[in-house]
């Protein structure tokens, strides 16, 4: 349908549908009818009873002509009611929002027309939190959350988190309000108005649209969802005009909700799959490197099957939960050695394949060298080959490969497994079994070495990062747990992955994607929101620098009763940056005792327990004695089991 514009014609036309009534503004200038005053005659001086002496405002109102008092007629609904119908059809469970007037129409439709259920509004204190919550939620649920924000200031706040989601190839469904029609903009709507709202994030979103009619909206809303969820997945943006949301439409207006059919992800081409199967079966020491591979819970099951069929080592780079941490074929802890040994290296949705095959030395003069053996065959399966953008450089260095399948790795695994099985002879099977035994031994040795490594500095205060992980594990290992975030960026050195037994798809949710700090706290709350329905225990290893970006998300967790155990890894610094600056000091051969300047979070120390308590979150700390940690986690766990968030502030060593 054509959009109802505020031209003189449409104004007259619309008036026919309008009924008498009172809006707050109108009440100031119109003598109230009895209906207007129900329930608040006494309290509100603007609603004086007829018996009371006339207030000056009322006298002025009597002198003025009656205003055109406007409410939705019986035969009408609003544009945003229809929008909610469409959003409901897409199955959104929640909309995260910091409230904003540019989407007030939609906000009202969500709570009144939609009954604030599917989608239910989640009140957020920062748009960056809204988006990161959506990011974390998706990683558990495999479904996007809607995020509502102003087209200008809201999106500006949200943009870093969108960038993280983009780099992590996670869909976020961004819904922006904007008053496009300059002729009817009021006050702040001028600052919140923009010609092309999505422009500022177009480099790191997959698709956007600004619909001009409700039919246009419906198609674009469904299309956006479909595009966001088609691998490689990524955020999308819908810009919803304030007028389109707020103008009434007739209930009989024929508006259809388009049907969503998600495309089946592309499988590797048959010939290429068979060629890879031949390489793998013939290989002496193949290694499978998985990064953003497990797109669904089935991904891990498939990778286990392929690895076991071949008795091949697996390196789980950890952007997704790709492989059980204690599986005998898991070679992540000796990843570099596994690559150096390999004669066939298969990258499954690996974002940085060059970094698997090569190493870059970070000294005053950077230098690169290949770590894979010469002649090793290199194969990639990734939807990354189907889609690349120019401006932001998340595509990493170009890696020479012998075979590249522009396909979804998880979708390709079933045919690859079948192709491999067809080729395995009894001779090869014997060779595989010997290899498997060797790898299992290597993985047992690595696991034992990790436990021994964790025992050093066991009694130290501040608490060692290994002990922090071990204490959490001891408390949660008998629960149905999910580690919703942790700061560890590298998988080889990641204490939970070295010490804990990860077996289920939701137990490890990867990283921020773009390395934008401030992801951890809100992503944890979003993931915990998703886990809540499944009755799982959500656990976050929460860093101090990360929490200081937007701590208001703790309030969101308390307000919406989102159970989450946050155990802090509080090293009182942006420690990664200290190491960077130290490198600069050393390289410049001066001031090596000043590397901490500018990156510490001390003087005063931040009291995270008080911060959390102020927002209604149960909290303890700061804990410095490692022996106090276990009991504190146990107490916090009791709170979380009752359905609330809890935080334990632990002062830890730097790394």
């Amino acid at each position, binding site marked *: 349908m054509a959009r109802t514009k505020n031209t003189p014609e449409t104004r007259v036309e619309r008036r026919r549908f309008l009924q008498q009534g009172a809006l707050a503004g109108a009440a100031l200038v119109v003598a109230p009818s009895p209906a207007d005053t129900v329930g608040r005659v006494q309290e509100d001086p603007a609603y004086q009873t007829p018996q009371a002496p006339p207030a000056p405002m009322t006298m002025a109102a009597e002198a003025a002509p009656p205003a055109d008092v406007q409410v939705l007629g019986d035969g009408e609904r609003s544009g945003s009611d229809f929008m909610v119908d469409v959003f409901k059809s897409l199955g959104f469970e929640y909309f995260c929002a910091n409230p904003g007037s540019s989407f007030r129409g939609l906000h009202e439709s969500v709570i009144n027309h939609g009954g604030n259920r599917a989608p239910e509004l989640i009140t957020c204190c920062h748009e960056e939190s809204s988006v990161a919550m959506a990011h974390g939620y998706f990683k558990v649920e495999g479904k996007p959350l809607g995020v509502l924000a102003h087209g200008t200031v809201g999106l500006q706040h949200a943009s870093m988190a969108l960038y993280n989601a983009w780099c992590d190839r996670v869909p976020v469904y961004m819904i922006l309000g904007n008053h496009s029609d300059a002729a009817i903009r009021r006050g702040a709507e001028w600052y919140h108005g923009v010609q092309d709202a999505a422009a500022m994030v177009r480099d790191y979103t997959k698709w956007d649209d600004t619909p001009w009619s409700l039919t246009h909206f419906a198609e674009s809303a469904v299309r956006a969802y479909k595009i966001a969820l088609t691998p490689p997945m990524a955020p999308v943006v819908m810009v919803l005009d304030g007028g389109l949301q707020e103008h009434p439409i007739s209930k009989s207006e024929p508006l259809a909700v388009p049907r969503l059919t998600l495309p089946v992800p592309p499988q590797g081409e048959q010939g290429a799959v068979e060629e890879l199967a031949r390489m793998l079966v013939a290989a002496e020491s193949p290694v499978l490197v998985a990064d953003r591979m497990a797109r669904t819970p089935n991904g891990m099951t498939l990778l286990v099957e392929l690895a076991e069929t071949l008795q091949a080592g697996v390196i789980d780079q950890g952007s997704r939960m790709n492989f059980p941490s204690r599986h005998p074929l898991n070679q992540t802890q000796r990843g570099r050695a596994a690559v150096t040994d390999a004669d066939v290296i298969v990258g499954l949705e690996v974002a940085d394949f060059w970094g698997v095959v090569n190493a870059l030395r970070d000294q005053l003069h950077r230098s690169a060298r290949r770590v894979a053996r010469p002649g090793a065959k290199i194969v990639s399966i990734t939807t990354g080959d189907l889609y690349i953008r120019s401006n932001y450089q998340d595509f990493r260095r170009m890696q020479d490969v012998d075979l590249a399948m522009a396909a979804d790795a998880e979708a390709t695994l079933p045919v690859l497994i079948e192709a491999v099985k067809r080729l395995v002879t009894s001779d090869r099977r014997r060779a595989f079994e010997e290899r498997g035994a060797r790898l299992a031994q290597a993985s047992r040795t690595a696991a034992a070495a990790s436990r021994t490594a964790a025992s050093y500095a066991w009694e130290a205060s501040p608490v060692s990062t290994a002990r922090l992980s071990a204490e959490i594990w001891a408390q949660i290992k008998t629960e149905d747990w999910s580690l919703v975030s942790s700061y560890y960026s590298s998988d080889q050195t990641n204490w939970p992955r070295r010490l804990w037994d990860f077996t289920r798809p939701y137990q490890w949710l990867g990283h921020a994607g773009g390395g934008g700090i401030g992801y951890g706290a809100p992503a944890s709350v979003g993931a915990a929101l998703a886990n809540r329905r499944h009755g799982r225990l959500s656990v976050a290893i929460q860093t101090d620098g990360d929490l200081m*970006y937007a701590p208001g998300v703790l309030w969101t967790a308390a307000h919406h009763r989102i159970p989450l155990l946050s155990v802090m890894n509080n090293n009182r610094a942006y420690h990664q940056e*200290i190491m960077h600056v130290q490198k600069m000091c050393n390289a410049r051969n001066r001031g090596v005792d000043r590397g901490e300047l500018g990156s510490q979070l001390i003087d005063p120390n931040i009291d995270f327990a008080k911060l959390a308590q102020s927002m209604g979150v149960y909290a303890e700390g700061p804990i410095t004695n490692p022996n106090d940690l276990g009991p504190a986690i146990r107490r916090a766990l009791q709170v979380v089991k009752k359905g609330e968030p809890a935080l334990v502030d632990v002062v830890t060593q730097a*790394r």
Partner: protein
Amino acid sequence: MTRTMVGAAIVVMLAAPAVGRVQKDPAYQTAPAAKPADARAPAGRAGNGATLYKKVGCYQCHANEGQGGLAGPRIGPSPVPYARFLQYIRNPTGDMPPYTARVLTNQDVADIYAFLEARPRPPAVDTIPQLAP
């Protein structure tokens, strides 16, 4: 303001494989083996070593007790022989930042070495229930 850690992640990932196997991995050749005459550490003062260890930033990557783990290998207790220790600090072959004699004297290094040698040994892993597999 948003700070990014992409570069940082690379640093850590490169450092990571060295953990616990600096010697074995040809990618991280450490200093040539020391001649027997060099093998003894000069007398070091562990107390001063503790101060220096913190002050010049060893703790940042090797953790407070030299236990290592996330950003550098374990270097205490029982660090590598002194000559190699000194050589590595002066001429690291991996990602570790170099410390020249201008910013850290040989005596300073010896003091740090003494501090690392004096770190307590951990309890046996099997006696720590939190580390049960």
